């Protein structure tokens, strides 16, 4: 028993749940906002990504972003957000174009083409980091796991004179809002081309245009989330809220709403879990969403058994 007690850190309700919302509210609020916005944007867009069976394209983009960032740094000689963002976005779009190109111009299937492209680009990025390592101030841990807490070290900037917030939180907020507005405005063409590309084409909606627009949007979201949650855990944010919500409902609009609820809940619980265990925030959020996925799965199994039990 003693051994197990050593493994689990002591839990102090006051310290884990109360103090962040009282004494450290200024900084904690922004970490929470960032966690929610990243999970919400990924979850919302992820719903379409998952149902179009492109879940791993997000994985590919998040890895191939590395050379984009390094090259942007070498060219601009700065760590400003804009060149970093453009470099990463360019790499993300290049990834989807290359996957498509290899798939169309050879007999290689999409999954293998995906594996070729993102590992190559990631390796290219690693080589660049090794070559110009002393010039590039890149932390490998940060690339892989992200640093959500970094938002508190930023100097807050004013937003429309209403309030002050860290720059990256404002940027992520804009991205999240853009994703939701675009999905709402183009909901029907998106739904149609995801469910039945043939009918969409016959109605003059080009599934290829929708596909590439979605890929570009995915690149924007992944690149924005990259700094906060890293290359690996962004996949959890893309896939888990969407799959969890899909287990709970059979209607797409409800599923989209549920991903936002899941984002809110997992950001809240994940942050407090990270405080308690003194662990990575992004990883803690992912663990919480995984827990929700298991709960949703179990509840679906239980309701099915109950329903079929009644029928007999």
């Amino acid at each position: 028993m003693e051994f197990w007690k050593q493994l689990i850190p002591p839990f102090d309700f006051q310290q884990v749940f109360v103090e962040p919302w009282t004494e450290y509210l200024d900084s904690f609020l922004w970490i929470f906002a960032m966690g929610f916005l990243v999970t919400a944007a990924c979850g919302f867009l992820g719903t379409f990504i998952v149902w179009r069976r492109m879940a791993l394209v997000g994985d590919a983009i998040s890895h191939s972003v590395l050379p984009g960032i390094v090259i942007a740094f070498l060219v601009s000689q700065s760590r400003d957000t804009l060149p970093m963002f453009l470099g990463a976005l360019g790499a993300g779009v290049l990834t989807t174009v290359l996957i498509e190109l290899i798939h169309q111009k050879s007999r290689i299937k999409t999954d293998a083409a995906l594996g070729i492209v993102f590992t190559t680009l990631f390796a290219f990025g690693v080589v660049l980091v090794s070559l110009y390592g002393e010039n590039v101030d890149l932390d490998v841990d940060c690339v892989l796991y992200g640093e959500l807490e970094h938002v508190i070290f930023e100097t807050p900037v004013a937003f429309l004179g209403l309030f002050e917030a860290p720059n990256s939180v404002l940027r992520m907020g804009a991205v999240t809002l853009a994703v939701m507005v675009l999905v709402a405005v183009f909901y029907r063409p998106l739904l149609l081309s995801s469910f039945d590309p043939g009918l969409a084409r016959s109605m003059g909606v080009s599934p290829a245009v929708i596909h590439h627009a979605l890929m570009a949007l995915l690149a924007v979201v992944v690149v924005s989330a990259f700094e906060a949650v890293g290359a690996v855990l962004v996949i959890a944010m893309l896939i888990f809220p969407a799959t969890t919500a899909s287990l709970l409902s059979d209607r797409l609009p409800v599923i989209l709403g549920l991903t936002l609820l899941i984002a809110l809940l997992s950001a809240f619980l994940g942050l407090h879990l990270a405080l308690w265990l003194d662990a990575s925030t992004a990883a803690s959020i992912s663990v919480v969403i995984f827990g929700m996925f298991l709960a949703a799965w179990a509840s679906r199994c239980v309701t099915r058994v109950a329903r079929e039990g009644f029928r007999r």
Partner: protein
Amino acid sequence: MSNFPLEAHDLTVAYDRRPVIYGVDVQVPEGKLIGILGPNGAGKSTLIKAVMGIVPKSGGWVKVFGKPFERNAARVGYVPQRESVDWDFPVNVMDVVLMGRYGKLGLTGRLSSSDRDAAADALEKVGMLPFAKRQISNLSGGQQQRVFLARALAQESDLYLMDEPFVGVDAATEAAIIELLRELKSRGKTILAVHHDLPTAQTYFDMLLLLNMRLVAFGPTEEVFTQELLQKTYGGRLTILAEVADQRVQRK
């Protein structure tokens, strides 16, 4: 002035430079129920997909009611193969039928109550209105096909292109579908359906289009449904009578 519902000249489609259909010339008259027949790989689905631009043409042209397809897309209803979509997709029966209305709405238009009424009417006609709120994976094959048909009805088109509407459906659904197609025809609509069952083809369709990469024959069923033309379509090595005989031998 030729305003055929569908007119194709020298229509050619190739995948990876390998032709799938080659030099198809056809003028489809209005108000007919037409079956497209041919062996597997003959390009039956490709033909109707090429008409709608779902697969790119390598040569030739297509006109729908005298204009390029894109200008008259709203007058064409489409029923894809049932297996071409993911039936686990999180939409219900009503959502799917409403998709039939999307073509008239433009990219960002909103559905109105008249769209919902049209969708409900279409569901009523195929006997699926009680299932409107049902998730589409909880339907039988025949019910799924009826939903696709209702969606095409909701398109309120003048020309219907249907890809294997009778595959995997129960006898009751098959009878209901053919009755519905005849009703559409009586209202002056033109229907082309890809079909694979020879015995029923003879009774279902006014006209037959026999296809095996090239157009073998197109004309009234009684003129086209001959041993000679069918043999030409399905290949000399395999006569229809021999096929039927084979099946009898296997059963014994």
